[in-house]
């Protein structure tokens, strides 16, 4: 992984995540057709798109779960296509990922779910230190009392919050949210949106939020990019885009 030089360059350019001309196709189905994006330090960038527009494919390319056909992904100054598996694993500890379906390990308790990344990446921690970190993360999402419960005993909203606590436990620099409010009732969605804002304030993270929830985009976004036909169709603040006269853009904000 790049060290001092790249870090200096990052702080100068203030960009923590950069995507350049990303292409990805599955057979004849071209999902991404030269998509580009910059995520600035401390920014909440919302990526909006219709279902099946390739948002989830994009974030899977970002974290190395899918290999893009063409294009460049640079995270914290590291071109991920050039990284070895161990360097990629190390870089992944700087990225928190909230999955659409929470993806909590259902054979483990909440405590074990949160301890899992700690045990694997911070071997020098004592059990007391580990417990303190687990409770700190749970406190951030307001669910300290669930520490010994199994994921199946939690509601959908609680699972999403625990998944956020797990994503935060290694204190990542970037958090990627994949449809954070999908499948939740309006009240729980609002709680999750508020939580995302408070997390950003507390942990000073940069966030890439993939959503088609307009309320979520309105509350959390500093900037919005619209993904359409595999390219970034439009970019701007919520007010700029929601007041646009372009029919395709308007359709997102109805």
């Amino acid at each position: 992984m790049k060290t001092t030089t790249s870090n200096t360059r990052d702080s100068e350019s203030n960009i923590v995540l950069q995507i350049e001309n990303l292409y990805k196709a599955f057979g004849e189905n071209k999902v991404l057709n030269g998509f580009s994006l910059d995520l600035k330090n401390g920014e909440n960038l919302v990526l909006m798109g219709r279902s099946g527009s390739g948002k989830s494919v994009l974030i899977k390319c970002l974290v190395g779960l899918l290999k893009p056909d063409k294009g460049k992904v640079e995270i914290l100054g590291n071109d991920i296509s050039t990284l070895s598996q161990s360097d990629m694993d190390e870089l992944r500890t700087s990225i928190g990922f909230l999955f659409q379906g929470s993806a909590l390990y259902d054979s483990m308790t909440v405590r074990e779910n949160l301890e899992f990344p700690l045990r694997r990446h911070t071997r020098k921690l004592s059990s007391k230190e580990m417990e303190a970190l687990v409770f700190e993360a749970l406190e951030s999402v307001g669910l300290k009392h669930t520490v010994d419960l199994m994921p199946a005993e939690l509601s959908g909203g609680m699972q999403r919050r625990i998944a956020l606590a797990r994503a935060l436990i290694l204190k990542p620099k970037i958090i990627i949210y994949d449809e954070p409010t999908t499948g939740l009732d309006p009240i729980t969605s609002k709680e999750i949106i508020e939580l995302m804002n408070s997390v950003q304030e507390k942990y000073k993270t940069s966030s890439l939020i993939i959503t088609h929830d307009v309320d979520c985009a309105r509350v959390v976004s500093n900037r919005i990019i619209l993904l359409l036909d595999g390219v970034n169709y439009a970019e701007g603040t919520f007010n700029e885009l929601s007041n646009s006269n372009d029919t395709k853009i308007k359709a997102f904000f109805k």
Partner: protein
Amino acid sequence: MAESTSFYNKITSFFEEIGEMTRFAMRFFKEAVSPPFEFRELLKQCFFMGNKSFFLVAVTGFILGVVFTLQTRPTLEEFGAAAWMPSMISISIVREIGPVIIALICAGRIGSSIGAELGSMKVTEQIDAMEVSGTNPFKFLVVTRIAATTLMIPLLVIFGDFIALIGSALIENIKDDVSYQLYFTQVFEALKFSDLIPATIKTFFFGFAIGLVGCFKGYNSKKGTAGVGKASNSAVVYTSMLLFVIDFVAVFVSDLFYN
């Protein structure tokens, strides 16, 4: 025409699957010898597999010994060879019936459970979550499970064989007043290393096959929850078939060596 195309497609996909499973097995060997090693998870899996199958294997083994003895006794008595019962039962159970039956039971119990667990983890993105948290899911989930079945199935088979012999001894004691001491003396006199070693070696391959197929089916599970059921089901079907193939090869090879 359509039927021949469909048959051709089935044959092609069968061989494609064999190829993919071979590649999966090669990856297992590659990942198993490279650090970091997941000893903690391996021990956990060994404990789960041993602990959860212990009772099932004991009951199956006991019934196997009892039924086998009861069914064989009249024929041997007819030929005036009832005294051969301990030798015959022990050789049959240790060399063939014990390993195959216990491995089939474990394929149903452990193989399907691995297929369903990994399949469910796959469709609920838990495997992806593990990967993005910087953990190699293949090493953590697959290597540990295959290694655990490879180590635990031989132990379960030995245990099952022993319980089957106890069941047989019990029937001999009830029916013919044969003492347990005499029964087991005859058993150990009848059994040779040439019976024990090939029979034990093949159980390692049985264990490997159960873990490999279960993990392969679960790890490559697709199409949502229906895919999980399919992964679990096909893990048992493929493993059972594979166990008989391994048994055939093992018997053939040991026959070459010992005759």
